[in-house]
């Protein structure tokens, strides 16, 4: 009964609302020793958030010792200043605080969230962690052994976590972005306590630290506290490690990871994408939203909604200081592996051939801008955003100008980005995890196959020597 009026209204209401979202005011201070402070007052809830980055991250891991920075990050929490490991954890929890550390590809992150009344304690704990960590040898051994079992456990049944590791290892080969940030069973075996001490001395220091805070505090007091805490800290002793930019791979090749008892094949198909500083970010985000970035995307529509082959299919870009990976990921029952992969490749071909139509572009614009404010709602999100902007050398225009850039995109500008960024079907890297016996033969049509067992203790793939693609043939 409501059919006609409802649809009529729905259609009429599709006017693009390029709702502008802007960053709230903040104060940026650079201390004499290089520490960058960014402060943003926000008093909707009595909480304070801190997001702290140390440049370098896994890029600073020595060869063959993937996971040093990750172990160091964990070890920072295991005792610092006057407090032992247990007491440190107890102090955080006793006031309802949260504190976590992690290593990423290009930085180490310390994240904290406390009730405002405990702001001083939060700064004290984080300053202790970074400047006066215990870095205890026994704690190191415990963490290292446990981390090996964490990886084994993922190999038992957490393929979603493993796939990006295998994908980047195989895609990037010898490049620094191939390394597993959290290490592998074999690289963790090789790491010694001294490696972590060396990393701390060489790669952790004031000259490469960004501290972003957002929440219910007085900016002047916060600034004074952070200056007092970090103002005298030493710089790191070694050069900041940098990755080289790498060009997309030419040709196709396939990695098949054998997990004999898997009931589905988990797959990733992609190539090298773009860096965070890629100038046509709005066009690219529009393109990816349409291709594989939302529920009604082309990929999810084909592989899930229309065929029921999978619970989900999507495309993701990892944008680092230098170009990272860009890939399609999904999974399907072992017997439908080829059907699903062929379908994904078909969607990629259609995407290249047809681009994004006018109506679809309008929909993607509305979607991106409609969801955008949700990303800048909390102190945690704001602190993270400020820290990322600083880390990647961007400016407030990254947020404030985004709505305008989205609004300005046209079907032509998006088509140009699709052509420039998304790989063609002749240049693709395939990573498949599943029951190799069932699919070994049938996936050969995608390219030369390198097969490894999931129990192989390293993620580094010995590129099949006889078949390594000719890298010098270039573009």
């Amino acid at each position, binding site marked *: 009964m409501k059919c006609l009026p409802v649809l009529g209204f729905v259609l009429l209401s599709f006017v693009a609302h390029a709702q502008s979202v802007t960053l709230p005011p903040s104060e940026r201070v650079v201390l004499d020793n290089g520490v960058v402070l960014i402060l943003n007052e926000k008093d909707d809830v009595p909480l304070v958030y801190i997001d702290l980055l140390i440049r370098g991250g896994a890029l600073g891991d020595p060869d063959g010792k993937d996971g040093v920075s990750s172990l160091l990050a964990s070890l920072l929490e295991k005792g610092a200043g006057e407090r032992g*490991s247990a007491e440190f954890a107890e102090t955080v929890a006793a006031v309802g605080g949260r504190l976590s550390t992690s290593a990423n590809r290009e930085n180490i992150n310390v994240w904290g969230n406390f009730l405002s009344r405990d702001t001083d304690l939060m700064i004290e704990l984080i300053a202790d962690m970074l400047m006066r960590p215990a870095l205890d040898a026994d704690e190191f051994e415990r963490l290292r052994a446990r981390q090996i079992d964490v990886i084994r456990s993922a190999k038992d049944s957490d393929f979603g976590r493993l796939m990006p590791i295998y994908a980047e290892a195989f895609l990037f080969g010898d490049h620094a972005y191939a390394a597993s940030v959290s290490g592998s069973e074999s690289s963790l075996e090789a790491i010694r306590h001294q490696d972590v001490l060396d990393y701390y001395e060489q790669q952790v220091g004031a000259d490469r630290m960004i501290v972003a805070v957002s929440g219910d505090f007085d900016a002047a007091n916060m600034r004074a506290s952070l200056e007092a805490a970090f103002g005298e800290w030493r710089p790191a002793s070694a050069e900041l490690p940098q990755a080289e930019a790498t060009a997309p791979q030419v040709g196709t090749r396939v990695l098949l990871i054998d997990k004999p008892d898997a009931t589905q094949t988990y797959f990733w198909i992609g190539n090298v994408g773009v860096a965070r500083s890629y100038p046509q970010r709005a066009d690219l985000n529009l393109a990816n939203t349409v291709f594989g970035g939302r529920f009604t995307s082309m990929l999810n529509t084909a592989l899930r909604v229309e065929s029921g082959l999978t619970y989900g299919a999507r495309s993701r870009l990892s944008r680092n200081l230098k170009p990272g990976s860009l890939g399609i990921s999904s999974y399907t029952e072992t017997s439908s592996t080829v059907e699903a992969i062929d379908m994904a490749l078909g969607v990629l071909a259609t995407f290249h051939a047809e681009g994004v139509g006018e109506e679809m572009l309008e929909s993607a614009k509305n979607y991106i801008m409609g969801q955008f404010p949700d990303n800048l709602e909390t102190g945690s999100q704001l602190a993270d955003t400020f820290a990322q902007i600083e880390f990647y050398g961007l400016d407030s225009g990254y947020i404030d100008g985004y709505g305008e850039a989205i609004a300005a995109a046209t079907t032509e500008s998006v088509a140009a980005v699709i052509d420039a960024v998304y790989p063609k079907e002749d240049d693709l890297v395939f990573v498949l995890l599943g029951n190799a016996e069932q699919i070994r033969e049938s996936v050969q049509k995608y390219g030369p196959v390198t097969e490894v067992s999931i129990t192989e203790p390293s993620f580094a793939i010995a590129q099949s020597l006889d078949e390594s693609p000719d890298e010098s043939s270039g573009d």
Partner: protein
Amino acid sequence: MSTPFIAELSRRNVFKVAFVYIVGAALLYWLAVVAGTQLELPWWFPRLVGILFVVGFVPALIFAWVYEITPYGLKKAVDVDQTQSIVFKTGQKLNASLAVLVVLAAVAMIADRLLPELAVVEPPPFVFDAPTGPNVPEEIRSFTLDNGLKIIVWPDHDIPNVVMYNFVRVGGRNEYPGITGLSHFFEHMMFNGSSNLEPGEFDRIMEAAGGANNAYTSNDVTVYQDWFPKSAIRTIFELEADRLDNLAFDPDVVESERGVVQSERRSSVDDDNSGLLYEQVMASAYLAHPYRYPVLGWPSDIENWTVEDLEDFHRTYYAPNNCVMVFTGDVTPEEIYSLAEEFFAGIPAEDPPKAVTTVEPEQLGVRRLLIESPTQTPLLHIAFHAGRASDPETLAMNMLLEIIVGGDSSRLHRLLVEELEIATYVGAFHHEGFDPSTVYFYLGLRSGVDPARAESELFAALDAIVAEGVTEAELDKARNIMLADFWRAMATIDGKASALGDFEVFHGSYERLFDRSDAVDAVSTEDLRTAAADVFRINNATIGVLQAAAQEGKE
């Protein structure tokens, strides 16, 4: 095109009839709107008038073409002797009518602009329930439509967005063999088409308007979530009302969606040891109560339920009186009220669903199960029967769990992960449902560790709490964690919507959310010890182990 044809159209006054029809219809539609409001006719009355006019347009033109007015009455145009035709006179009459109608329409437009207060009766006054509790934010409003749909609104204008949660009181506990998993499957079908919208249209319309959506199904409820810019609010109401009222089941889509759910099941159960063990432990912990059924359903049921099952399910459970909706964000209670009246008030209430009356009998002794699977790292899961969400002891149990497994300082993490190094992680949660449910412990063990050892260490730690209780410092810690977590939830409109709905549905009123802080302060160490003693008994436990089949000698 043929000019003679157009000339003939003109001669037979078809164009004039069209003009008169359009202007006349617009005028009558306006009158219908005014009359509808004045006389409080149903909301669909003016729409019906509008639709009739639209539908009648083409027939009217055909009529004008085919028939001609003659002095002898209405005759088919082809039968009229052209020399006797009076179409010219009729045309003049039409011209005059058109002029009169245009004048009337102009008057109507002016009246509509100048005299809106005279033309429109005030809608019935909004009957809001303002909060009564002392700690409840005073801007929250709630109301219940005549069909039983309860709506809670919490305005928050921090960002220009809105969140909607629709809590439907149906989940795994409403299922039985043959339709296990139907609640969850139904959740998928709620995105898959109505009598108005093709499969897929729901999501396309919502995303094109800037919104995103999702849903989850538990043993107790099915919850639908929309996140959208303020500008999309009307679209959201249209979409939500449409799928509540007009859901349809395309047999092809039903078949295809079975494949989607089987894929979801393979990744989260068959290829996930933890999901697999959880399913088996829950199925063993309950003999009688339907909490024993996996939310995703048993595979054979996923293959076999029918479109009729789905239709029955929709009629029974997706009635407005079985739902609670929450809106938070950049809205006012007034606009939600008037949209709700417009879109939801016409959906009929249904008889309340049949109550779930099965009570799980007392467990008479420990239950054990073993899954052998090629795994490097064994798993240990333990389920204890405990209370329901609304029981007073539930808060004490939740605080106790913070002390036992909440973070790196918790008792079990310290013991099993850091000191004994027999686990990579340990966690626990209280499944808070309508009926008495479980406190569930899950441990990932280090490779080579005997699960029996982990079990005895875990029970020794729990026994110590039953015997000696917890310290005041630990209780204070739990209080602070709950206080900080409350504020973390309040930091987003999503967290607010989720929490309000949760308390409304499981604790009887959203207002209870704001009593939480006082309630937390009132809990004593003795309350925690009692909660531990009631639940952590070996005869109340179902213990599941997943490990590789024994091959070589042990250890």
